């Protein structure tokens, strides 16, 4: 089998590197007849630009972005990669016992007012108390590490952050009051939605169909390995930034495993649709773009697992 | 009638950075209160430098220059006509005159402009004035303050003969009314003969006083003979 070449663009600092490293160290791409080229990127915006500029074939992106782009006429499509979500963190000795305790506090939010977790938290808060969270609590928006920092030094009372930053906070003694997964479940979204996915244009899917399929196979194989094989994690400690911190290592590994996608059925998109609808209702176009529902084709029909 | 200050000048050494010989070395002079002293001497001898030292602008020398006993730099501001007009280009002629001191009123400034024949130019900017007009504006500015000490570096250059006569009268009337001490640097023998009661002629390296002539005042401007004598005396000395 002649190896096919595919270029993916991934954030050099992202958790996705754990999977890439596994693929490379085990030679999984070669095994699937794929020559996987990896272009490191600085951040997610760089990924979007690289995809638009045609510098890479595949990037990692969230499904809301894909839906919004499709709505805008930019025909991109995706296959799920990760289910991990963030959660609401509080210090160990916090007086906040549950979500109603957020009233009158200052909450640090990673990203900004349009962050998806923040919208979901507002929906959840409204369903529990009937009040509008930003009116009864003060929100401070900032970059993820900044939010963690402020949680650590008392600058905020609670923090809504991404999962890998929460893992670090947990390792530093903070505790998760409520995960976004729980919030979604109580809001009626039973299954966790596939927030992140491998994203490519339909044109690429057509022109490099086989290469894309082989890449997805490779990816799912790697996920399988990471899910079941502890030894595969051993040489990832450096990438994880947990060389001499066993607790952090375990925390990151377990949280990562909890979010691994192990199957994919392009017809079963109900979790994504429900989440999208929720986001559209509570967040509006700032969060989901101009479209009000998840357009068909957001998830690539050309693959299943 | 107030009388201007007396000056004691004693410059041990004044040397410009980078130049081989000092401009002044062991230079001494005294200037009597209320006198009009004309300074003559070849180009580049140090006349303007001397005025800058007296005005307290140049302090990069060793020695003592006192004005009524006070160090030059701390004495009251002199009225100074520089060798170039040195008007502030961003102010009108009128406003340039008004910078002479705090609280110079428009009327005062207009009077000074009138005396130098610039009433019509009050609202023009310096670059709109002719060369002679600029110099007259500089003279008007220096006279506005009624300073006790007037330092005039070739003030009558670029003026036609009629104007020069008017300026002689103006200076003579200032001398007569408030009696400031005046130091007048000039190359024109006539200037010295008409206005000065003392003439210092500079020469040599380092600069020394080569001649020190005293002319009795007050003189009669119509008395051509006396003026001719004075003229001849100065010409002989230079």
């Amino acid at each position, binding site marked *: 089998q002649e190896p096919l070449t595919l270029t993916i663009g991934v954030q050099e600092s992202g958790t996705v590197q754990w999977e890439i490293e596994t693929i490379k160290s085990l030679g999984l791409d070669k095994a699937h007849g794929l020559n996987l080229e990896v272009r490191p990127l600085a951040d997610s*915006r760089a990924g*979007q630009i690289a995809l*638009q500029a045609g510098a890479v074939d595949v990037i990692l992106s969230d499904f809301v*972005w894909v839906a*919004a*782009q499709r709505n*805008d*006429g*930019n025909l991109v499509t995706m296959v799920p990669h990760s289910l991990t979500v963030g959660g609401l963190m509080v210090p160990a000795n916090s007086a906040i016992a549950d979500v109603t305790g957020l009233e009158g506090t200052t909450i*640090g939010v990673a990203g*900004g*007012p*349009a962050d998806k977790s923040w919208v979901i938290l507002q929906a959840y808060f409204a369903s529990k108390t009937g009040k509008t969270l930003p009116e009864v609590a003060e*929100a*401070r*928006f*900032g*970059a993820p590490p*900044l939010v963690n*920092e*402020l949680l650590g*030094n008392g*600058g905020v009372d609670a923090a809504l952050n991404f999962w890998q930053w929460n893992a670090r906070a947990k390792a530093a003694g903070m505790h998760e009051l409520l995960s976004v997964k729980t919030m979604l479940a109580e809001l009626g979204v039973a299954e966790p939605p596939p927030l992140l996915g491998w994203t490519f244009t339909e044109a690429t899917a057509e022109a490099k169909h086989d290469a894309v399929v082989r890449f997805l196979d490779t990816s799912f194989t790697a996920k399988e390995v990471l899910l079941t094989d502890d030894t595969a994690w051993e040489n990832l400690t450096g990438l994880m930034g947990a060389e001499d911190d066993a607790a952090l290592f375990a925390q990151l590994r377990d949280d990562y495993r909890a979010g691994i996608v192990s199957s994919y059925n392009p017809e079963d998109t109900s979790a994504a649709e429900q989440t999208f609808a929720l986001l559209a209702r509570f967040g509006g176009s*700032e969060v989901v*773009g101009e479209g009000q529902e998840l357009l068909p084709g957001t998830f690539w029909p050309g693959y299943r697992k | 009638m107030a009388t201007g200050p007396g000056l004691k000048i004693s410059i041990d050494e004044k040397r410009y950075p980078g130049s081989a010989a000092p401009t002044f070395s062991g230079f001494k002079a005294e200037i009597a209160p209320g006198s009009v002293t004309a300074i003559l001497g070849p180009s580049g001898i140090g006349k303007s430098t001397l005025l*800058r030292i007296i*005005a*307290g*602008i140049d302090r990069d020398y060793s020695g003592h220059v006192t004005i009524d006993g006070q160090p030059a730099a701390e004495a*009251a*501001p*002199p009225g*100074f006509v*520089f060798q*170039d007009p*040195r008007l*502030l*280009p*961003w*102010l*009108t002629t009128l406003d340039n005159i008004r*910078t*002479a*001191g*705090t609280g110079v009123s428009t009327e005062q400034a207009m009077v000074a402009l009138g005396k130098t024949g610039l009433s019509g130019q009050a609202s023009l*900017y310096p*670059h709109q004035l002719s060369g002679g007009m600029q110099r007259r504006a500089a003279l008007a500015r220096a006279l506005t303050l009624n300073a006790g000490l007037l330092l005039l570096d070739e003030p009558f250059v670029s003026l036609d003969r009629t104007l020069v006569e008017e300026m002689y009268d103006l200076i003579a009337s200032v001398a007569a009314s408030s009696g400031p001490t005046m130091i007048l640097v000039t190359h024109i023998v006539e200037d010295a003969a008409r206005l000065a009661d003392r003439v210092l002629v500079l020469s040599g390296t380092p600069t020394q006083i080569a001649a020190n002539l005293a002319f009795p005042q007050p003189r009669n401007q119509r008395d051509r003979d006396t003026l001719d004598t004075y003229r001849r005396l100065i010409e002989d000395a230079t």
Partner: protein
Amino acid sequence: MPLLELLSFPILLLVWQVLAMVLAHRLFPSPIAVGQEMLRLATEGKLLADLAKTLWRASLAFILAMLIGTAIGILIGRKSWLDRLFSSWLLVGLNLPAIVVAIALYIWLGLTETALILAVVINKVPLVATTIREGVRSFAPEFDELAHAMRWPATKRLRLIFLPQLMPFVLAAARTGLSLIWKIVLVFEVLGSDGGVGYRVSLFFQFFDITGVLAYTSAFILVVLAIEYGMLRPIERRVLQWRPAQA
């Protein structure tokens, strides 16, 4: 002939429109599309509120940075020992990435308005100071002599000889300064704030909504043009009227 001034901007729009029509690319919207979007965002969206927020931040930071920077620039330009001692500090300040300053201030002062404005000011002051310093160094010494002879107090010197000679440098610093400050505010609003043009632009950018980005940008540029032609130019004409007219 103010005709050229009036035509200048329409011609730019025309060039833009023609380019947009020739390229016909999703990411290159025409000025008409951008104009419509601007109108929509102003009436239905939060454009006006965002613009107000950013303008407030930018103008406050601008005024503070100009005042402090000019003062520092004059001091360093006049006293060569201060220059020798502090000009390497100025260089460090110039080259310190905005993000470092922002992080430090956000951590110490929290994600507050004060922190944002202060960060912008700290970022901009070295730029103003550097420009003004070059201006001060180019001062004509003969006016200094004049001021000296007349024993002008410091304030009179400042007003009558420093500021007029500094004018071109102040104008350069002001014109480039406003634009730089707005760009820095954009960056900082992305890092940590809950509104303002920068924040919204980064949202648009997430969806590659270039039309939205340009709508916000154009709104800001319109404000800058209004400031330029409504304020800066008239002031400039008055302040510089002494200058001989140029061809």
